[in-house]
């Protein structure tokens, strides 16, 4: 049923693909419509000042800063995992920056384009120390707590099948909080979710030291922002906003020093910050679009450190999400 609805939605959106460009709509509206989660620690959640904050949120702020020179010109629409694609297809939002895994079917048949990978995640297992397991391969006959409706649920099945193992049962709960409490109360032996979420889960456990993360990562979860098919200019804009964040970090341009950097003689920096060439115009913006973005949100590393990095309660190391120059796989194509 859901598939049929999505297909219908896709057809209708194809019919509407000849409409005005998204960028023009956004400019006319005076704000970017951005879909985020209904609350996911480190990625999008309301802070004490009643503002949305998080990695996914900051990405939308970066787009808005590039367009309007004002990171507050974003209207955030909190979406559940079920509704996120319908909202994007129907045009209710311009970009979905909602912790969404880049998969082939989503990129193709559902009619979306992924603009990049803001966060390389993978599914892991959290287990009580007292159980004494060292590897996910030993999880034979385990009962597993998982959040329902997520790809985590499917991955567990795949992993056990691929390794010729059997679990006792998979117990699925509607929300993360319920799953955590169930795991903590001993309803199941092991808790599985994306590793970024397991970091958040540990914060909620009464005795975090009693639980360990198993070393295996059983799935690839490249999480990134996505847009609708049918507007390539808008796709480029979102994609290059992401690359601009990466390139700025690589070139050492930060929120603090961006004004100095504008005066830099380094040709890469000059091209990126628009003092040489007019690359911003290629995506419908002015040449100094990156200056605006970095002033508003900082580069990728700053966004990471502010929301999920080691200094935050989540305390997640950069790992795969480090730049390619520092042992990670975040890599921004050159501006030229």
């Amino acid at each position: 049923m859901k598939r049929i609805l999505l297909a219908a939605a896709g057809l209708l959106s194809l019919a509407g693909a000849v409409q005005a460009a998204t960028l023009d709509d956004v400019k006319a509206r005076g704000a970017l419509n951005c879909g985020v989660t209904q609350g996911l620690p480190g990625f999008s959640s309301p802070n004490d000042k009643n503002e949305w904050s998080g990695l996914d949120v900051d990405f939308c702020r970066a787009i808005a800063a590039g367009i309007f020179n004002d990171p507050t010109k974003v209207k955030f629409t909190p979406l559940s995992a079920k509704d996120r694609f319908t909202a994007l297809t129907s045009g209710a939002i311009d970009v979905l920056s909602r912790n969404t895994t880049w998969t082939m079917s989503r990129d193709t048949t559902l009619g979306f384009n992924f603009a990049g990978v803001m966060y390389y995640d993978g599914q892991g297992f959290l287990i009580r120390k007292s159980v004494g397991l060292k590897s996910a391969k030993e999880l034979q006959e385990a009962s597993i707590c998982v959040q329902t409706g997520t790809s985590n649920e499917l991955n567990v099945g795949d992993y056990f099948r691929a390794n010729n193992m059997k679990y006792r049962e998979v117990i699925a709960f509607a929300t993360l909080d319920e799953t955590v409490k169930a795991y903590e109360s001993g309803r199941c032996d092991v808790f599985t979710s994306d590793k970024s979420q397991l970091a958040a889960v540990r914060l909620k456990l009464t005795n975090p030291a009693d639980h360990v993360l198993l070393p295996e990562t059983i799935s690839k979860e490249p999480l990134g922002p996505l847009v609708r098919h049918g507007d390539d200019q808008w796709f480029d804009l979102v994609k290059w906003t992401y690359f601009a964040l990466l390139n700025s970090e690589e070139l050492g341009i930060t929120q603090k020093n961006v004004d100095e950097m504008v005066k830099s003689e380094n040709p890469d920096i000059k091209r990126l910050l628009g003092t040489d060439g007019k690359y911003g115009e290629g995506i419908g913006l002015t040449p100094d679009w990156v200056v605006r973005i970095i002033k508003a949100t900082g580069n990728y590393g700053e966004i990471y450190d502010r929301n999920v990095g080691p200094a935050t309660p989540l305390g997640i190391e950069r790992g795969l999400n480090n730049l390619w120059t520092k042992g990670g796989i975040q890599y921004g194509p050159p501006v030229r």
Partner: protein
Amino acid sequence: MTDISAPRPSITPATPFVSTAFHEPQPAPVSTRGPILWARQHLFGSVPQVLLTLFGIWLVYVTVPPLIKFFLIDAVWTGTNRDACLAEKLGRPVGACWPFIWAKLDQLIYGFYPASERWRVNVVYWLGALLLLPLLIQSLPYKRLNAIAFFGVYPVVAFVLLTGGNLDLQRFVLGWLGVDFSTIGGAQGLRIGFWVDYVLSTVLLTAIAFGISRFLAGPEGGRSAAQTTLSVLGVLAVVLLAVDIDTGLPQVETRLWGGLLVTLVIAVTGITVSLPFGILLALGRRSKLQLVKWLCIIFIEFWRGVPLITVLFFATYMLPLFLPGRFTIDGLLRALVGVALFASAYMAEVVRGGLQAIPKGQYEGAMAVGLRSGLMMRLVVLPQALKLVIPGIVNNFIGLFKDTTLVLIVSIFDLLGSMRAAFTDPNWASPTTLFTGFGFAGIIYFVFCFGMSRYSMALEKRLDRAQRH
């Protein structure tokens, strides 16, 4: 005492015993009065009663002390982030994490409503309370005026305050029919074109009403129809003027509303709309006019047959796909309409139950004294029927109040939704945050629902004089 003639004990007059002191009345034995009697009668009257009592005491013992310990004794009262609520940082068991609630209180009451505009929400809260309370207290005067203020004026004022008004209306009846005045005069705000449209439409509609009624009911009917149309459109004009005028208040989209504000807006709208509509539907369903009857049946059965979640989902995400171009309806408004239609259908069945409980004699009696059917319903049947179903009506209200949490699935954060979102702030993630939050939300919901429940019981008692034994 069969033998009457038996000699009486002789009384020797020399030493009669006469008590000189007045004996104070003694209290009844301890076991037959006061708390002990009460306990014997109500708690320890029989073996099953004793067992039940002991079970009750045990139940209280196992639930209440831990709750008090968690929410009060072990609770943390101040702090600026999660560190304040961590057992390993404090070196003692930690109960409720109240600073989390203080930090998120604004979020829970106003949602994302801009901080500089929150006074508007406060005014709406207080104005609502000030108008509603005297309406509920029977002994206070000016009920009619009060009702008009609460049901008529207050919604308009609340709408303008909360949204900022300044709707920029463009076309009225003639505009939609194709005669476009929207270009006349001011291009924005209070458009002259719209009001030209309005006045002309009013003239036209009045004329039509007059013409039809005159044709059907003679000159008298024509005049009264024209008067009715004029007064309805006159009131409407005042309302439209209020929402159209530029008050200078910044606009606040409903997308930014949240927390208790949304819960109350949906609940109050649902409650105030569902009662009159429910009554109309219930009457319609019993109508002798087949068309009306079947329309009502279809309406009621449709809305009772479809889950609210489905309707909310379709209205929010599928409707935009089918509507042309940039035509959008506000998200909260869609949820409001959905909830109101739903509640009306349920209410209709409750009211119908009441109508069926009224004996036929009441109808016949009313007809015998010459009441027309409208008056019969208004003066004889409905007052009795509604009184009978007060528990059912309030049950619906309470259910509706709690159903408002369903709007979370269409991304509207009501009180519970705001709370759930607040849980995800990593700065406040701690083992007890979840319990604190749900405990707090539970208390708020309880206060409202218990309030409604108590008021309905008081109302029943007051209206039940005739049948009290």
